[in-house]
């Protein structure tokens, strides 16, 4: 066996377990779900699918998904850009804390975000006078809130690495600050902007918890429509037709994102040790003002949630928190915690394997293509409807040898798959960033492959590993789409319980939902804060 073939076999062995998991717990359920749509009584029925896709409601849902996601993406970019500048190009006391604060919405469970916005915008709420509750504006605002961190982090990390002298050269050649921004800075940020935009659009178009809690039956995205069709109308064919549609769109988007990432890695020309931040100056005032406003917008729903959870019938009260035990919140939190631990372990195991595989840089064109394909493949759970995944689990994993429907492992597995792309996106760039010559230098000094791993790769990897674990934990804690199908009625996770409580008409139930949201919030933020304490700066690119 030649060395090259042996190396190729090694890669395959590493990729085998993640691939197997992906096939059994992702491809199979999704295919099962899709099969339900295309096959009626054992025969292919494309005309039926076409008929479904021609329905007026489907068009409305599709149109709403597209325009609300596009609008939310545009607004997120617009608000995130000044924020990225302030948090990554200026240095001032408290910057680190602010960076952590901006990250908070991203790790908040989507159901909690939905509940928080309803509290803020309800007619009796602080912004009730705007009468935005139940309007698309509320949905778009919640999407922006949720995704701001993606833009700030992705663009900020790139911006931080840009050599300031390039802008200075342009200024010295006569370019005004706006011209510098337009002709030098923005073109350099394009890869980051494109990458952030595609991810944000993806998150918006597949967002479930937020839309379900804020849009009700009136405003549905493809994702919530799939949920409604399966659970309310039991129209599996229509649901799976929509799943297929979503899968196609998402695959195209991921392909585009992959392309920008490749060009970005080529174009990245880092400033190295030279510091690129400076103290704020007077002309930064407008940007600082905009950022302050954005921060207020981010803080408002969280503050509203907290305040309302401490009130009942207009008076301060801890009653909602006392109700938590009666509503089974303690048990739900314990379930959530256990599931999150399992899901985190599983997603880390898979994520490390996948990252090691996709971060290799083979010479041969064919191998490179293969790796790029694998990379995209493991990103798919990011965009495939979690609802499709959850429902697919139910209909495909219900017969021997894989009769897992009543098993407790389904929820952690589904959540691990949802968290996997995030883990890979955090680890793979770090591994790719290790100069291969460092490995070669270590090897030439007498280090064996394991020794190289322990002395060269592990030292740079352990912090990102912890960060990825933290993210996976937070994601799992808040996962709602797949879990809402898979959690057993007697053992709901906390987000599922919150949704149930919030959908009941009683004021007290909503109050308890708020209290439970605050508890979930505190747990998620604590985990994230611990991760941030590791001073990771901006690891990862989504």
């Amino acid at each position: 066996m030649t060395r090259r073939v042996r190396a190729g076999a090694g890669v395959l062995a590493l990729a085998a377990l993640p691939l197997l998991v992906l096939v059994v717990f992702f491809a199979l359920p999704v295919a099962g779900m899709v099969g339900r749509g295309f096959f009626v009584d054992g025969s292919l029925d494309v005309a039926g699918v076409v008929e479904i896709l021609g329905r007026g409601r489907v068009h409305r849902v599709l149109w709403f998904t597209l325009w609300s996601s596009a609008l939310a993406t545009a607004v997120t970019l617009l608000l995130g850009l000044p924020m990225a500048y302030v948090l990554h190009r200026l240095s001032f006391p408290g910057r680190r804390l602010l960076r952590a604060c901006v990250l908070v919405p991203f790790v908040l469970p989507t159901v909690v975000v939905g509940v928080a916005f309803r509290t803020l915008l309800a007619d009796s709420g602080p912004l009730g006078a705007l009468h935005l509750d139940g309007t698309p504006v509320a949905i778009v605002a919640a999407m922006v809130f949720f995704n701001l961190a993606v833009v700030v982090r992705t663009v900020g990390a790139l911006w931080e690495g840009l050599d300031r002298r390039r802008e200075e050269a342009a200024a010295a050649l006569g370019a005004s600050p706006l011209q510098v921004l337009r002709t030098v800075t923005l073109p350099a940020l394009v890869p980051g902007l494109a990458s952030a935009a595609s991810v944000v659009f993806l998150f918006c178009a597949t967002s479930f918890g937020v839309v379900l809690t804020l849009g009700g039956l009136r405003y549905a995205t493809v994702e919530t429509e799939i949920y409604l069709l399966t659970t309310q109308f039991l129209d599996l064919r229509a649901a799976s037709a929509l799943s297929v549609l979503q899968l196609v769109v998402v695959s195209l988007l991921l392909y585009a994102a992959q392309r920008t990432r490749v060009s970005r890695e080529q174009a990245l020309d880092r400033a190295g040790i030279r510091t690129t931040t400076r103290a704020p100056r007077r002309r930064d005032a407008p940007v600082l003002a905009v950022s302050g406003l954005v921060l207020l917008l981010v803080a408002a729903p969280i503050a509203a949630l907290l305040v309302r959870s401490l009130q009942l019938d207009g008076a301060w009260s801890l009653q909602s928190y006392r109700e938590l035990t009666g509503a089974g919140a303690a048990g739900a939190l314990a379930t959530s915690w256990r599931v999150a631990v399992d899901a985190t372990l599983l997603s880390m195991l898979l994520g490390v394997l996948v990252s090691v595989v996709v971060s290799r840089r083979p010479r041969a064109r064919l191998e490179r293509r293969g790796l790029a394909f694998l990379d995209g493949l493991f990103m798919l759970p990011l965009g495939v409807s979690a609802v499709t995944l959850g429902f697919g689990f139910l209909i495909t994993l219900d017969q021997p040898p894989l009769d897992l429907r009543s098993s407790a492992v389904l929820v952690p597995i589904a959540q691990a798959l949802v968290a996997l792309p995030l883990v890979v996106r955090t680890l793979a760039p770090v591994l790719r960033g290790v100069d291969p010559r460092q490995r070669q230098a270590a090897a030439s000094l007498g280090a064996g492959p394991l020794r190289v791993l322990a002395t060269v790769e592990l030292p740079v990897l352990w912090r990102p590993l912890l960060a990825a674990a933290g993210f996976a934990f937070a994601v799992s804690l808040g996962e709602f789409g797949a879990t809402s199908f898979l959690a057993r009625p007697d053992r709901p996770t906390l987000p599922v319980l919150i949704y149930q409580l919030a959908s009941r008409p009683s004021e007290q139930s909503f109050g308890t939902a708020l209290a439970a949201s605050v508890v979930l919030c505190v747990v998620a933020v604590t985990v994230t804060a611990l991760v941030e304490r590791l001073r990771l700066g901006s690891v990862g690119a989504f």
Partner: protein
Amino acid sequence: MLEIRDLTVRFDDAAPPAVDGVSIDLPAGDVLAVLGPSGSGKSTLLRAVAGLEPVTAGSVLYDGVDLADVPTHRRGFALMFQDGQLFAHQTVAGNVGYPLRLRRTPARTVAARVAELLELVGLPGFGQRDTTSLSGGERQRVALARALAVDPRLLLLDEPLSALDRGLRERLAHDLRDILVAAGTTVLLVTHDQEEAFTVADRMALMRAGRVVGAGTVEEVWRHPADAEAARFLGYATVLEGPAARRVLRAAGAADLSGALALRRSALRVDPAGTLHGRVVSARSAPDAVRLTVDVEEVGEVHAVAAVGDRGTMLGVGNDIRLAVDLNRTARLAG
């Protein structure tokens, strides 16, 4: 003309200022090199002149106008960095034409001017190249063309050739001088490389720890280093003081025996008719000469050279030899 008056730049109140009360005059059309080791504050001085660093005290004037409230992009200068800082998203022509397009120059004029500039820097026909495909020297030429595109009233060069390897650097230094003279540009250049400064500049200011220690024409600064440290930085191998300096000056037949004396490596030459007596400590062949270390009576260990042909005859370690002094290869310290 550029006037820098008592300029001070301080980054941190606790630390000494990066630029400390520097005053420099640069007449229009002249090329001034600010020479200094890294950390001497020369780059900060350049950035302050460009308007990129806030000035703590003092002023920068151009043609009598104080530039304190003029932002970088309105100063009419151009700045070229060590590594060119070309815009990766534009072609060579895009980069060179950038300052012209900023000024809304018609496309046809831009194209003609770009071609002319690329001709000037010796890269005709490179317009459609991608900047990433260029070699280090080519990148610097493109950066220079870009900086010259709108006839800046002052061209600021930050270590323009330092990132290049030695042979290329020497060739490009001559080209740079020719291009700058042909364009008639006023240039402020900072560098840590004395050869670069000598080749490119008419005038020189030596900078150390934020202060200017010695300024004038290249010849003046070269001939009269301010002190021993300045002399060493200018490439003088040894600085002699007191009796040792007097002994060498007497051997050279100088009338004035006062002051410290800086010697280049080749200031002392093996010569049977010389009046300095010494013993060879080490000898090593170089392409053009034999480089010696000699323990000279009343002077101490100094460097000396011998013609290549002398090798082996009398230059063995421990041999007694005679040395003559070439005063053109020495400098009296100013202080």
